[in-house]
């Protein structure tokens, strides 16, 4: 009984903490990194006062947000108003359960991993919608409606991209999908090559799904101030912030897992040196490669933000429905043909 409790309850809880705590820390440091990068792109310094080179800026912001007053607008729906940030955050954290960090490091090796991810990301919409409705504010309501329409539209494109991936990999399990990208041709064995348009669509849809620039119609500070979370302050706002960045990092990891070979090295199959473990990972692969890839993908978010002007609302909808979804549907058939005629082979045989 006690053994079972420890094995089935305590250890999973510790594993969950091992994922969630570094994730929250990563969000804090990523916000600092974002402000620095955008600062450099704008030819200015970015945060540089708190801590060496400003690295503690994020923590100062967290303390500031936590000690601020949480304001409840007049005639707001009290229960839903405070539930909404939590509904936004929980799916963003829960989705991390099925992420395989390396061949053995995975919290839940679920068979239907992709479906689970789709389910969790589709739940995030509720946080946005309820925040907008419960705030009893026109700005928030408009922002919520825009955000919801946008997120539902791009979820479709994202789902179709994942269909292409699972056609090639032949599995919904994320570890199996990464293992299908093993091979002897280095990074040409990864799925980005046969699925190049889908890779691009997936990542852009991910940017739209997380409401990041240039698709930040939900916030659009020049039109509707801050969209669905305009009425939120203090720690309630901090939860929305955390959810947005947790989703951003999640999309970066997923792009790396689905299209960039997960934890595999870009040199796989090319180098056959025998070296000690601390240097061997460079060509045999390891979780560090996944982190490097995810970091590069998340850098793209910042690059987009500093580069592109915001899309107009009808342009966003047109891009999602009339450009991305048809291309993704067509590529499902292309992926099927590639698989059927053996152009793309998966696993070590490829």
């Amino acid at each position, binding site marked *: 009984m006690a053994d079972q409790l420890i094995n089935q309850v305590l250890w999973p809880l510790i594993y969950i903490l091992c994922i969630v705590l570094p994730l929250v820390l990563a969000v804090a440091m990523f916000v600092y990194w974002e402000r620095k990068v955008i600062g450099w792109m704008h030819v200015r310094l970015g945060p540089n006062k708190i801590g060496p080179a400003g690295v503690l800026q994020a923590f100062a912001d967290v303390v500031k947000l936590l000690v601020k007053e949480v304001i409840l607008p007049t005639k707001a729906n009290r229960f839903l108003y405070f539930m909404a940030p939590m509904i936004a955050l929980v799916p963003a954290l829960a989705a991390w359960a099925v992420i395989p960090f390396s061949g053995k490091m995975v919290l839940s090796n679920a068979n*239907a991993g992709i*479906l689970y991810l789709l389910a969790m990301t589709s*739940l995030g*919409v509720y946080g946005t*919608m309820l925040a907008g409705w419960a705030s009893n504010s026109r700005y928030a309501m408009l922002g919520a409606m825009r955000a*919801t329409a946008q997120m539902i539209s791009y979820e479709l494109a994202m789902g179709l991209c994942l269909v292409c991936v699972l056609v090639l990999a032949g599995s919904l399990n994320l570890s199996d999908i990464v293992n299908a990208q093993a091979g002897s041709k280095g990074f040409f064995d990864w799925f980005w090559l046969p699925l190049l348009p889908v890779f691009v669509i997936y990542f852009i849809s991910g940017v739209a799904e997380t409401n990041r620039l240039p698709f930040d119609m939900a916030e659009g500070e020049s039109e509707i101030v801050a969209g669905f979370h305009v009425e939120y302050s203090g720690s309630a706002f901090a939860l929305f912030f955390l959810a947005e960045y947790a989703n951003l990092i999640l999309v970066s990891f997923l792009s790396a897992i689905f299209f960039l070979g997960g934890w595999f090295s870009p040199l796989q199959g090319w180098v056959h040196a025998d070296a000690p473990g601390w240097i061997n990972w460079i060509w045999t692969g390891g979780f560090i490669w996944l982190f490097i890839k995810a970091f590069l993908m998340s850098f793209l978010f910042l690059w987009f933000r500093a580069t592109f002007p915001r899309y107009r609302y009808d342009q966003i909808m047109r891009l999602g429905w009339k450009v991305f979804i048809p291309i993704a549907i067509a590529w499902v058939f292309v992926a099927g043909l590639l698989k059927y005629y053996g152009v793309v082979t998966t696993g070590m045989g490829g």
Partner: protein
Amino acid sequence: MNPQTLQLICFYAFSFVAVVAALSVITLKNTVHAVLALVLTFFSAACLWILLDAEFLALALVVVYVGAVMVLFLFVVMMLDIDLEKMHEGFVKFLPVGVIVAVVMLVEMVGLIGVRTMHAQGLGANPATAAGVSNTAWLGQALYTKFLLPFEVAALILTVGLVAAVALTLRERSDARYESASRQVRVNPRDRVRLVKMAAVRPEPSAATSENTPGEPQP
């Protein structure tokens, strides 16, 4: 505590949540709360299915109903302007009809269960476990081999429904303004912007202005 007991406890917990949430759908005064209770009902049903190892169906329920259908539902309900008092008046009036419908459905379901037990056809072993593959893989193989024709017919019917819904609700408005994206893309910059080349010469500062703003170009 053996796994069966734990599963039983979980089953009752999820069922309890599902039943309570389903009851609150019809008893809650606030329509948005009612929609959220319906979401909770679907979610609890999905949890029950996961307990039965039907992971694909459970996650599909969450993706389709919770993630898409109910979001659109909530979208509409949020924008409704409903007089809650007026809505509540009809509750007692329509209660008998509701009770009759519920009782008939209950009798039908109990009858069905009774007939099934009299046939004494057990469901048998889980075919997915018997085949040694995951629930999702088995379902995929069954759908695309044994039930391919019904599956494709169902897909066709759904597509027809989709097209019909669009055709029924599409209004051609002559006064609507729209932009043709292809025309926008085909625009030549030379038609819209005239670039004027000017030599980068610094004009000689005149005596009057050089005192105040040295080096500023003259108008």
